[in-house]
């Protein structure tokens, strides 16, 4: 039981403890590293589902009303359903588990030198609540009338009453799935935040905490304080559906805009919830693969703090054409433009960190640089959407679709793959294949851009989003070939992920054994064994220095682990 599991933590614990039953070790584990892997695998599985919905939509957009291989004709109502589930899955069931949960779980305790989360059982519970949420969501495909078709934002009145879409159970399960997911991540958030505050190793002051941990904690904070109103809003939406209340139904005196406000009050910070962890991985990778101290450590942490604070007061830029009070548009335009300042600062710090370094373009670094490039495009196109004047033209077109894929995709997949490759040796104790990794990167990078770049053009040409059949609109005929091109690129993009799957599973079982610190990095996780045993560290790590001391002139080695004592002291004890 409990006790035995906890004792099984010496460095030999890995195989020698027969009493660590399979179910406790792999299923109901309280070990943060195992929970991280559980989240990772669940998230990657959901990515397959999300990709399948994308495939079906793209098929329909390029070859309208022909049977998509493996499914059949995508009818208009099914298209709505696919859009909804695609958005929901990609944001909440891929982005959140892979980036927030898996990364925070794996990285925070290791980087701060803790043995585990401070509430390990809560951690386990949070994972299983998440599983329940996944089950709810997937079940909604199979209930009568199918899954929710109200868009991933679930705007009422469409989502508030069965009479509009004919879907009851799908919507109810969709709301329940979100509610469970939020409960799960709230538990997770409490854990990450409390662990960060309480369990740092001796000497690890706030100014020595690695940036990855800072940014992961920032993501948790963004989530933590923004999700509450949406939970309340979701309860009201649920009651509108099941109890016949009319919170969001104008004919009953309700206010549909209220949901939009509650949703986006969460929705904008949510963008940072998936973005900051991607950034976290990239920030950790850049100094390691350019062998240079990071530029502007404090500046970046403070910029993040400012961005977090501002992220709570920009939400209505998603609603410029919603019919909200026009007097609100001005302040929200201003805050939106303001919030790009801290991110610009962070990006400049990153570029400065790269400058003049001895850059090694190994797979994690490739993903990191790819992240920077693609996200920059996403961020720049956001400027058009941020100001109310041009937003009114672009809103509801494929320009928006292209924009948010240029922000989400880099964050979730470029950032995610960067993190997976970078921490792969630590996670699984083996090395991934560098060659397959590079092939996978270039396939993804090239075809991601082929897929989404033309969409900017299609969007500014007037193609509206969430339409099931572009062939119904004369003005969209000009984009026929472009749409086919986009679709084929998307197929290759999705197919290219097979390379990753092969690399991933082959390396887990067959990859060459990894040493403790294969990338010669400074942070504490690299001082633990690969993979770290239950309990992580054999002796208490003590931190003597900041995380980014690379290529110091007075050192033979070009890196100085955080737990290496100062020279004088080392000589004294030696």
């Amino acid at each position, binding site marked *: 039981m409990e006790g035995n599991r906890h004792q099984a933590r010496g460095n030999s614990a890995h195989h020698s403890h027969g009493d660590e039953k399979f179910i406790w070790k792999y299923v109901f584990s309280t070990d943060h590293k195992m929970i991280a892997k559980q989240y990772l695998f669940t998230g990657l599985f959901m990515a397959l589902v999300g990709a399948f919905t994308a495939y079906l939509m793209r098929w329909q957009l390029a070859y309208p009303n022909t049977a998509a291989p493996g499914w059949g004709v995508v009818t208009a109502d099914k298209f709505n359903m696919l859009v909804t589930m695609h958005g929901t899955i990609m944001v909440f069931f891929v982005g959140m588990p892979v980036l927030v949960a898996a990364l925070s779980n794996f990285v925070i305790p290791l980087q701060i030198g803790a*043995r585990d989360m401070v509430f390990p059982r809560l951690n386990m519970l949070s994972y299983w609540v998440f599983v329940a949420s996944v089950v709810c969501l997937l079940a909604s495909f199979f209930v009568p009338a199918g899954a929710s078709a109200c868009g991933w934002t679930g705007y009422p009145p469409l989502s508030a009453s069965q009479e509009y879409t004919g879907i009851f159970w799908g919507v109810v399960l969709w709301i329940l799935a979100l509610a469970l997911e939020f409960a799960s991540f*709230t538990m997770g958030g409490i854990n990450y935040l409390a662990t960060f505050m309480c369990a740092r190793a*001796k000497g690890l002051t706030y100014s020595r905490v690695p940036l990855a941990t800072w940014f992961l904690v920032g993501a948790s904070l963004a989530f933590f304080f*923004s*999700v*509450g*109103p949406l939970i309340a809003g979701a309860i009201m939406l649920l009651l509108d559906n099941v*109890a016949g209340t009319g919170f969001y139904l104008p004919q009953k005196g309700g206010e549909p805009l209220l949901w939009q406000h509650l949703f986006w009050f969460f929705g904008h910070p949510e963008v940072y919830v998936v973005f900051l962890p991607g950034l976290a991985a990239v920030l950790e990778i850049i100094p390691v693969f350019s062998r240079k101290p990071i530029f502007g450590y404090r500046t970046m942490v403070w910029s993040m703090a400012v961005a977090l604070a501002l992220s709570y007061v920009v939400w209505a830029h998603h609603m410029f054409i919603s019919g909200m009070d026009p007097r609100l548009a001005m302040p929200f335009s201003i805050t939106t433009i303001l919030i790009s300042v801290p991110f610009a600062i962070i990006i400049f710090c990153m570029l400065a960190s790269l400058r003049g370094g001895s850059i090694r373009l190994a797979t994690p670094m490739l993903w990191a640089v790819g992240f920077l490039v693609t996200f920059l495009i996403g961020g720049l196109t956001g400027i058009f959407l941020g100001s109310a004047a041009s937003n009114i033209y672009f809103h509801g077109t494929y320009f928006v679709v292209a924009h948010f894929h240029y922000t989400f995709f880099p964050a979730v997949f470029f950032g995610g793959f960067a993190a997976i490759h970078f921490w792969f040796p630590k996670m699984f104790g083996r090395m991934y294949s560098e060659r397959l990794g590079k092939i996978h990167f270039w396939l993804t990078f090239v075809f991601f851009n082929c897929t989404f770049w033309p969409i900017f053009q299609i969007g500014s040409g007037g193609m509206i989003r969430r339409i099931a059949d572009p062939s119904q609109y004369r003005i969209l005929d000009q984009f026929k070939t472009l749409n086919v091109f986009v679709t084929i690129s998307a197929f290759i993009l999705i197919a290219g992920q097979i390379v990753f799957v092969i690399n991933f599973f082959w390396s887990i079982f067959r990859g060459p054994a990894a040493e403790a610190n294969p990338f010669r990095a400074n942070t504490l996780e690299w001082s633990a064994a690969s993979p770290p045993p239950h309990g992580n560290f054999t002796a208490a790590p003590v931190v003597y220095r900041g995380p980014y001391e690379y290529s110091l002139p007075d050192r033979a080695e070009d890196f100085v682990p955080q737990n290496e004592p100062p020279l004088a002291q080392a000589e004294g004890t030696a």
Partner: protein
Amino acid sequence: MIVQTAAVENSGEISTGKLGIWWLIGSEIMIFGGAIGSFILLRLAHPDWADNAGHLSVPIGSLNTLVLLTSSYTMVKAFENVKKRDRKKICRFLLATALMGLVFLGIKSFEYHGKFSHGIYPNTNLFWAFYFTLTGLHALHVIAGITAILILWTFGLRDRLWPPAPGTGTASPGSPGPGIDIIDISNFSDPSIRGGIIRPNVNMSIPGPRWSGGGRPIADRIELVGLYWHFVDVVWIFLFPLLYLTA
């Protein structure tokens, strides 16, 4: 290795459990904040809702407020007796708190029943939708609180609040006892970097018998549940005037 004895006092330090509860309360504020905020916004928009609010009985609402306030008092008394290690009193106060929680729920369902019998349901109009949603959400929290309190109460009855004094096999109420020796190997944090704010956590301490929940005596949880219970009370303190007194 730090060997610490469990002397839990308010010395400006807080345990991880307490920190967790406060984070929980922080997130609950946002949940209730969203619901209450929506109500306030629409209530301000509809002065005519006063008619509906007039249907709510202020004396019954006040009575319920008093019940919940008093239960907060008994809860804090239970916590006070944790410090004195008075198991009997702890149990008595916990039970009293839980019972008053039940009385609160009883009165609430009496009110619900009265509304239903007058044909007033959540879908009657927006005011009643808010009334049932807000009080229902609050009632769910009361139920959760009662459950937690009753669990602690059974721990108290079975004398599991503290680990047994060595050699005796039972806890020794009244006597301060040796406390538990926790060998903290879970984290290596240095109080100086935390500004002395947070006590070292002990989640991975060498596990004692079952009653040393997470290395801390169960008795410590009375404070945590108490914090939650008071929070639920505070929510009601605001709900009562918002719903009942704005007629």
